[in-house]
């Protein structure tokens, strides 16, 4: 994922993304909250930690400034289906459990730095075990609450297709999907960072 240092460079070059400049439409009031000031990292934002407290708009702008883009959910999930040793690790219960264990951990300790874990089969680092990540089409899933409640369920969504999961036991993916569905484009949170794709 993109680090504090990298994002700092971006903000320096594009001051409209300073936390005291940006519209609330693009980033909420917690944007870069962990930085000491709008142009200072400070002790709570180590250079090589993944940048967090960034919104989708901010992440998108960063990627576009490098002529890149946010990954599609499909791309992200594909890359994330591999473990260190296997291209497709969804049949590895130990690997799956490790991810779920990480999700179960409360995030009270400091964020580790990037690239400290072993990379996956595709040599991509930190898709698991570090931060949740924005994707380009984060708002592409229609998740409803318990569909037994109330008739308004019928009119909420227009859909002529459906999602089919080939692996109904990939709980981690479902968790990520639910998480993404709860996001709005200007949200920023402590554990949400991003990376770019080309």
């Amino acid at each position: 994922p993109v680090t504090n240092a990298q994002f700092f460079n971006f903000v320096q070059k594009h001051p409209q993304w300073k936390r005291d400049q940006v519209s609330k439409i693009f980033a909420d009031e917690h944007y870069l909250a962990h930085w000491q000031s709008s142009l200072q990292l400070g002790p709570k934002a180590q250079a090589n930690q993944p940048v967090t407290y960034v919104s989708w708009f901010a992440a998108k702008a960063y990627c576009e400034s490098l002529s890149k883009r946010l990954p599609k959910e499909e791309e992200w999930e594909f890359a994330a289906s591999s473990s260190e040793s296997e291209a497709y690790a969804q049949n590895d219960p130990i690997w799956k459990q490790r991810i779920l264990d990480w999700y179960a951990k409360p995030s009270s300790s400091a964020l580790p730095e990037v690239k400290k874990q072993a990379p996956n089969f595709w040599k991509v680092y930190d898709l698991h075990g570090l931060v949740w990540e924005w994707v380009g089409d984060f708002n592409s899933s229609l998740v409803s609450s318990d569909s037994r409640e109330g008739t308004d369920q019928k009119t909420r969504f227009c859909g002529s297709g459906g999602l089919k999961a080939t692996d109904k036991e990939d709980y981690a993916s479902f968790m990520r999907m639910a998480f993404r569905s709860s996001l709005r484009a200007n949200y920023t949170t402590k554990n949400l960072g991003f990376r770019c794709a080309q």
Partner: protein
Amino acid sequence: MKRSSFSSLYSLCLIIIGFMGLALVSCLGAPTKKNESTSKKEHEVLKTVEVSTGASIYALETPLVDQESKPIGVKIFQGSPVLISMFYGSCGYTCPLLLENLKKVDRQLEGDLQKKIRYLLVSFDDVKDTPEELKKLAEKHQLDYERFRLAHAGEGGVREIAGVLGIQYRKTPEGGFNHSSLITLLNTKGEIVAQYEGLDAPISSIAEKIKNLSDVLTK
């Protein structure tokens, strides 16, 4: 090589994933399969969403083209109260319904107020809903150009506008869209004042809200 568990993302099957309670309903209003999740009530995703606080969405510079092939911005109706939503032309059921609801609101507004209100509808479909297509739609629904704009945005622009409005959508392999329907009311400065479910829209409440927009009354 096996692909990720989302490789069959766009299958035509309506399958409810019981664990997380994902549900997608057909456009034609076919009954949903009930999920088997616990009865724990989750926060409803599409309730009135606070997508911004006091900030104007006109900060967005997304380029749009309207039904007369005129390049416009999201802020085309700055200075007027605006009802903004998203739709697509080949949508069979919910989009016409959404449009009909907007017209119902319009009919409840009288004289001066009706003259002041504006409607901006951005299409999800950057491929099929060209300005020419949008013009046909506008004619079909008898939408007067001065007050109603149907807009084409590029693929990235669609995602941005949906992001700002809190609308979820996904393109299906058949070229349609699964999407939520949310009507957003903007004040004359483009700040989000309220949001409403688009299909079960509370017509009278929306009309009332528009009438009570203080910046409209003082103009």
